[in-house]
């Protein structure tokens, strides 16, 4: 599951939150199939998607979720 955010600052925030909550996340560049612009996203396992969504909602961090994307 790939989470994309509105800004790099949001990515940094989200990564910190995941880390604090013991969620394994992987910082990855935004796939070229999604955007040609330079950006970073967070990859988490499908199992952890709900937990991450809940935390992000609580912290009011806006995100988009992508699944089955081409790298």
């Amino acid at each position, binding site marked *: 599951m790939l989470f994309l955010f509105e800004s*790099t600052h949001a*990515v*940094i925030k989200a*990564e910190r939150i995941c*880390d604090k909550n013991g969620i394994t996340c*992987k*910082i*990855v*560049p935004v796939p070229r199939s999604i955007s040609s612009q330079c950006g*970073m996203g967070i990859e988490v396992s499908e199992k952890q998607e709900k937990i991450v969504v809940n935390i992000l909602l609580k912290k009011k961090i806006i995100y988009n979720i992508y699944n089955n994307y081409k790298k």
Partner: protein
Amino acid sequence: MNSKIIDARGQLCPKPIILTKKAINDPNIPNEFFLLIDNETSKENVERFLKDNGISHQTYQKENYFQISVSKTGKKVNSSSEAYCSISTTKKLTADHIIAITNDKMGSGSNDLGKILIQGFMNTIKEVSPLPQKIIFYNNGVKLTLKDSPVIDSLKELEKLGVKIQICGTCADYYEVKDKIGCGKISNMYDIIDSLTKATHIISP
């Protein structure tokens, strides 16, 4: 469109060459046909096969495959398909370049941004072909090789793919993290200079 398409995507050598040879020798296939291939090795082998047989062709890079347009000469082709695959079996997955990681951040400026960038970098190395021969970590860079590093899984995966991971022993000792290293091999300045000297080029993000 009467141009016939031969789809060899998902096929490994010698299959794409066998299909190419068949198409050339089959009078039912038009003189101009397209060949679709999705791996670099097969593409190169087919190109060599066509060139050696004097068949003109042109390769186009599509989004995730190659399209080779072939123009038949009318002559039948007899060369063995397998002969063109011998090189591919010995071809290395890794190239001769080296990545030298000297910090646990990428670039200079914001530390927070630098940390995110280096993670994005390390997690993406395996997606880009060819892989580096080695990744060398020194000074602050060694911190990325620790068991609790955010990129440890990617490094382990790279190791499995044949990429050697060299870690500066002096640095690991200085930061007192020798017993926390989670991948690769501790090496010394001789090994590091030897690797850097022999590399075709060095990438330092």
